[in-house]
């Protein structure tokens, strides 16, 4: 069992409250996943700049002078914002690949959580309330975001095993369920050049979608392909720079509820997660159909 929450804002007036809304939703889903929690939040970044979110088990050591070291390596300006075990590094967008390579040299123990123009990912082991507080998620602004509370089944309870998983620029995926053919799909994706950080089944789902997007397919097409190529139980919620998608396997035993108003589209593993959203009393509320792809793009 796991809990998923998601929010895609249509009304810019709600953007300053995205972090608070997602935090409330995430904490409500603690019963479904008390092991670990994570959140991916998207905001409209500065034009021409990109962000890399990194995680360290020893932040005091790894983050000390990290911005200066990266600036020296790139020869370009770098901004750093440290939040507990994570740090967000901002740099010119054309420096992202160079920065990833430099970071692997400068701080080999650090993990990259996400990179892109809009995305930031924060995830850790612990109760959702504590994870959200640690990263001050409630203060964050943004256009859309996805959160996950994990009750582990397929792999260990570790920071890297928490969701969301990001396997491409500005992409992320969260999952409720378990995939049964992930080892085979992982082998195939490795052969095609994708890289993996964990033995986790969900990371394979994320990499599968990222690979399809790399090949030029749309988010809708990539999600359609999960229905034929991935075996097992899944409700996936996927984020991209401009979009938000949902797909459930044909058996659809993993729960999903959606709500839509003029102001937002919301996803929850249970209706409970959405009861505090503005206007929920009059929202259109439905269960996404099995084997059907839903997505919204701005």
């Amino acid at each position, binding site marked *: 069992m796991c809990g998923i929450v998601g929010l895609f804002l249509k009304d810019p007036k709600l953007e300053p409250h995205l972090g608070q809304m997602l935090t409330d939703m995430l904490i409500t889903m603690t019963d479904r996943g008390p092991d670990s929690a994570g959140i991916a939040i998207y905001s409209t970044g500065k034009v021409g700049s990109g962000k890399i979110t990194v995680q360290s088990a020893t932040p005091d050591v790894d983050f000390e002078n990290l911005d200066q070291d990266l600036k020296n390596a790139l020869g370009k300006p770098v901004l750093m914002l440290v939040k507990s075990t994570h740090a967000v590094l901002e740099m010119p967008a054309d420096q992202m690949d160079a920065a990833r390579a430099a970071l692997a040299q400068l701080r080999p123990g650090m993990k990259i959580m996400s990179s892109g123009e809009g995305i930031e990912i924060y995830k850790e082991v612990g109760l959702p309330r504590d994870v959200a507080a640690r990263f001050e998620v409630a203060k964050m602004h943004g256009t859309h975001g996805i959160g996950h509370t994990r009750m582990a089944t397929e792999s260990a309870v570790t920071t890297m095993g928490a969701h969301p998983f990001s396997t491409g620029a500005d992409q992320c995926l969260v999952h409720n369920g378990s995939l049964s053919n992930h080892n085979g799909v992982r082998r195939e994706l490795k052969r095609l050049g994708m890289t993996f950080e964990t033995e986790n089944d969900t990371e394979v789902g994320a990499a599968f979608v990222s690979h399809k997007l790399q090949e030029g397919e749309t988010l809708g097409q990539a999600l359609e392909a999960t229905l034929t190529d991935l075996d097992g139980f899944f409700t996936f919620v996927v984020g991209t720079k401009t979009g938000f998608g949902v797909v459930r396997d*044909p058996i*659809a*035993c993993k*729960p999903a*509820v959606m709500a839509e108003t003029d102001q937002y589209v919301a996803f929850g593993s*249970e*209706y*409970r*997660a*959405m*009861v505090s959203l503005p206007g929920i009393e009059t929202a259109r*509320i*439905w*269960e996404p159909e*099995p084997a059907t792809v839903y997505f919204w793009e701005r």
Partner: protein
Amino acid sequence: MQTFDLEAQGLRALNQALHDLKGQTNQTAWEVVNPKGSHAIAVGVDAPIDLTVRGSTGYYCAGMNKQATIRVKGSAGPGVAENMMSGTVIIDGDASQYAGATGRGGLLVIKGNASSRCGISMKGIDIVVHGNIGHMSCFMAQSGNMLVLGDAGDALGDSLYEARLFVRGSVKSLGTDCIEKEMRPEHLAIIADLLKRGEAEHLAKPSEFKRYGSARKLYTFNIDNASSY
């Protein structure tokens, strides 16, 4: 009228108060406010009360109900009225997966749509759905009646025993060993009664339904059927 604020008073206190009503009671009218999608609301009631939930519920609302009439003025989460024994449960909105699962008696009315696995393994319950039902509904259903005013999803009545299924709209596909059967006068009488008790008399006529039932070929293991199991 006993009004119970679920947010302020808590779920255990509600269910304990309801379980304390044994047999006959003068406290017959109950109202639950602020349900906010909570799980296990009014589970295990065994008294002839009338309880209204003002809002939507989470998992297992009205599970194992006996005698009570329970109304949900909203939508219900998974497993509503699961294993109901008697009484009536009426959902004004939609119901999530496995509504009325394994129900042994009583009446479940869903005024919106029901999701997948509605009436799975039903054993005597009557279920009336004003809208549609999802895939794998009435899987291994043993007895009782399912009346659907809308459409049915994939694999309706797979591995069906003796439950009667009546569908007014389309059936996306029938499950293994489920077939369309002739409609006889006694079936029309059953439908008329279900429409009346299911608050749907104004919505449909008995003649508009088709009947589906078991072909009775999978009842006991037969090696010739091995590919169908």
